[in-house]
């Protein structure tokens, strides 16, 4: 994985992006949202920020075992504002 495709800015180098954390399971309480992480070999759903570009928040679905990016969409900021 060397690049991500920002829905607003297009394909950009990985170093422009900052991983935030995995997206908590629906209904997770405050403790789980802060400290617990959803770990999976197949699909990881994560929040990233395009800090070196539009600063938009992205939801990224990836396969952490192969490095393949499955889906990216904007969830806040970036081109939306």
């Amino acid at each position: 994985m060397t690049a991500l495709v920002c829905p607003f800015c297009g394909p950009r180098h990985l170093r422009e992006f900052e991983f935030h954390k995995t997206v908590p399971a629906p209904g997770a309480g405050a403790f789980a949202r802060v400290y617990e992480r959803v770990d999976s070999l197949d699909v990881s759903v994560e929040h990233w920020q395009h800090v070196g570009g539009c600063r938009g928040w992205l939801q990224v679905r990836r396969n952490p075992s192969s490095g393949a990016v499955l889906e990216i969409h904007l969830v806040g900021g970036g081109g939306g504002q």
Partner: protein
Amino acid sequence: MSGPAPRYSAWSLVRARLAGDGYWRPLWAGRTLQEAYDVVVVGAGGHGLATAFHLARDHGVKRVAVLEKRLVGYGNVGRNTTIVRSNYLLPENHYFYEDSLRRWETLSRDLNYNVMYSPRGVVDLALSDDDMSGNARRGNAMRLAGIDAELLDLAALERYCPELEPRRERRFPIVGALVQRRGGTVRHDAVAWGYARAASALGVDIIEDCEVTGVRTAAGAATGVDTTRGYVKAERIVFATAGHTGMIGAMLGTPLPIETHLLQALASEPIKPLLHTVLVYVFPGHGETYICQSDRGGLVMGGHLDGFPSYTREGRWDRLEEVVEGAIELLPQIAGVKILRQWAGTNDMTMDGSPIIDRLRYDNVFVNAGWCYGGFKTIPASGAACARLVATGTAPDLIRAFRLSRFATGHLLDERGGGPFPVRL
């Protein structure tokens, strides 16, 4: 030939020479999986093997098995940069890491296997007065605990590490350093092999190519594990699976405060002796390089985590560039040296950067995990303490702070002061 290896000594070398081929035995015995064990340890890495060794040696546990998905030493025990040190700020950490460093000093004798402990010093370079204050604070905390630490000004650093030429003009000039002289390096593969050999000699079954796929339970306790070689009954189960601990949490239905990240390392072609110590260089703008020279002559270096969850064991290219840039900034004379190989390991990063040795969901299931990027140096202390917890049911004082419940009770051990994110600086 079967049976355990003979005890190593100068005399055994002479006998081996006289006996010719056939004297040397495999380091650990190839045993078959039994139906039931007192303790099943999952993961034949450093922590798993050390735990099994101490269970058998210190607590007389008779039937111990170490189940390994791949090969002994395939994981992080063979993928690290071999550095050992105990230069931590928090008391809960530095007493524990110091216990480990003391065990490193005598481990070759204890295991009857040369792990090549080399107290060549670990030098944390300071690039600003602020860095020096941080170093002084940490050094003082260590000295109060009776751990060796020495703050070096430029002149002292020049005497300690002349090859660094600390006064040379750099983009980020060096102003001083904190050195722990008893820190240094240990031959990592020898640690895996030495523990495996010693544990096997005590009767521990080391079963490779045996993946644990599930835990069976009855009446609120674990009864055994399902493996790719069939079901094994176990009185107690210890998971020491390093970068796959998150999977264990999922298997037991217990989410853990752990995220799995890659950490890279690389080694250069062998060159003549150049660097006699371990340099740790954290430079402004998110860069870090630590570098030492192996006994074979290769420069071994590493840096920050890749920064996002991954099991690929590949490593991102720009991190590699960053580590090399830092190394050349430190030692410009190595700029023409070729990189021989690069690799990555999966790191079980906890949300405060400190480990977890505790029960996990069931009274007879234990987890030895969350070693972040510092697991190698703690292997001897972790094995001894974890074995005591498993054998007696009570955590020794040394690891009481490493309980899992600390995240809920707020007793975090956040050495970095970075909050519940493994990668933020």
